[in-house]
């Protein structure tokens, strides 16, 4: 290793030590977002730091200055958490229903199906995080079909006891109500829009982000975004009317989402 390599490594160590408090903060934030206990969040933090050091600071070396270091580290932590979660709890995929319902549904389903939280516990964590209104979280939770909690069974009896894998049947069937039918049609209509419009609508009406947060996330100007949302909402109402969804059903969907 020549002098330049040694110096570069020392600089990376210095940077790592400098960002440790920031990383710890990020670990706690991710833990909070994903409903980790304090101990689990600490374990994730220790796992992440060990990985950074073992890789000879490869994560920091890859930083090319295309973003601020803080944003980069946030994205790195988010990515690392997925690896950690897969390593610890196994790879897990959300159901098609949850994907259609948005990020909140995915997290709710993951906490209950994958991590073994009760519905009540998961709702309690999510309604206090990320600006999700309690109404929105409870509304989503109401759409969950009750199912028995996981329990240990004797191996010899496992084949008889085994529940279906994944999250099949976790959500109330979508054709159960007119509202669900409208929901499905709404998602179909949104999928026909351009990517940016899709994201704007999904963020606003599915994930309850404020207009300011959407503007920040997508790098858009905030003021024109209000008008754009109005225009998109109007277009959606028209489209849904066109496929036979009543005004009341449309109002119900959009009003519920908008309440956030």
């Amino acid at each position: 290793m020549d002098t330049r390599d040694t110096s570069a490594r020392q600089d990376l160590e210095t940077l790592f030590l400098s960002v440790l408090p920031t990383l710890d903060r990020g670990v706690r934030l991710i833990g909070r977002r994903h409903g980790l206990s304090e101990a689990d969040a600490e374990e994730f933090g220790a796992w992440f730091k060990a990985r950074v050091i073992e890789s000879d600071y490869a994560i920091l070396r890859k930083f090319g200055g295309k973003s601020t270091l803080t944003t980069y580290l946030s994205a790195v932590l988010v990515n690392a958490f997925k690896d950690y979660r897969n390593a610890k709890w196994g790879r897990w995929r959300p159901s098609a229903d949850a994907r259609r319902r948005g990020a909140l549904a995915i997290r709710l389903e993951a906490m209950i199906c994958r991590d073994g939280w009760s519905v009540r516990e998961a709702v309690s964590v999510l309604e206090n995080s990320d600006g999700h209104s309690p109404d929105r979280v409870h509304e989503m939770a109401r759409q969950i079909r009750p199912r028995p909690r996981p329990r240990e069974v004797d191996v010899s009896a496992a084949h008889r006891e085994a529940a279906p894998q994944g999250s099949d049947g976790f959500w109330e069937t979508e054709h159960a109500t007119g509202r669900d039918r409208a929901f499905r049609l709404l998602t179909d209509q949104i999928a026909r829009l351009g990517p940016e419009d899709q994201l704007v609508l999904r963020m606003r009406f599915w994930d309850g982000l404020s207009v300011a947060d959407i503007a920040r996330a997508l790098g858009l100007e905030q003021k024109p975004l209000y008008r754009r949302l109005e225009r998109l909402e109007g277009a959606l109402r028209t489209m849904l009317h066109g496929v036979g969804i009543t005004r009341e059903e449309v109002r119900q969907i959009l009003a519920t989402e908008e309440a956030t």
Partner: protein
Amino acid sequence: MSEAQLSPEVLAAFVDGTLDSSERERVMAILADSPGDYADLLDTVAVAAEMDPPALSSTGVRRRRWRYVLPALAAAGIAAAFLLPRPEAPSGVVGTLAAAIPFDRVSGQTLEMRLGPTWDQPGWSVTRGNEVSLPESAVAFRLGARGVLYEVAARLSDSSATAVVSAELQGLLRSLRGGAPVAALYAPGLMDDKDSRAERGAALERIADDRASFRLGAAMELLRLSMATGPSPSIPEEVPESLASAAATLLPEKEPLRIRVGELLVLLRSPDVDLEQVRRTMQSIMELAGD
């Protein structure tokens, strides 16, 4: 969740709005199509919004932060003791760094001729007004920077530049308690030989309570002047060494600044130095440390 297609680098650049339009459109299409990437975007935006160091400058957060910063500071201290180059002798910081400027790359008799009309523009706020209102660390940072600039001007026998910089140094020094005697060392017409300048440099560093900020200012000035020597500047090895040394000893409440300095170090060490990004990070450091 579907496999993520976007790397952390690309996702972070998207969030910060630094992608070009075609790349941004590509990312947007992936986000609309991939729930996994979309979930990562939401997580990244939420985490970055709360992780951003400048947001931590409020008093309440700063108080709580000690709990987390102290162990890191201790670790940084250990790193500084064992891993990093030892800082120069107290009297030599300004002189050592001033001597490292790659002036062989540019010709001219005065600083203005060598570096252009912006030779004395530091990057910190000049509309801030009276130096009395500056925090001590900002004064120390400015003293380090201007100490190097004075030494450079004096070595070139650039009398007009020396006069400009010494006047600014005097203003800064008078804002410090006990600074008047040191300010007197920079009065016009005094001896300007090597020993006198070394004595002034040492006095300047002694009067700056926040030595880490002083050293950081000196290192940043060396970098600023080196960057001004041409479109493909040569960055002296003293720059990263001094930056690393200063970063390791910055006070705990300077966390955002330490991170920016660390960022700059990595940029300077990368095989393909992105000069534009280096300039942006320098500007951010100048504002954080000098204002």
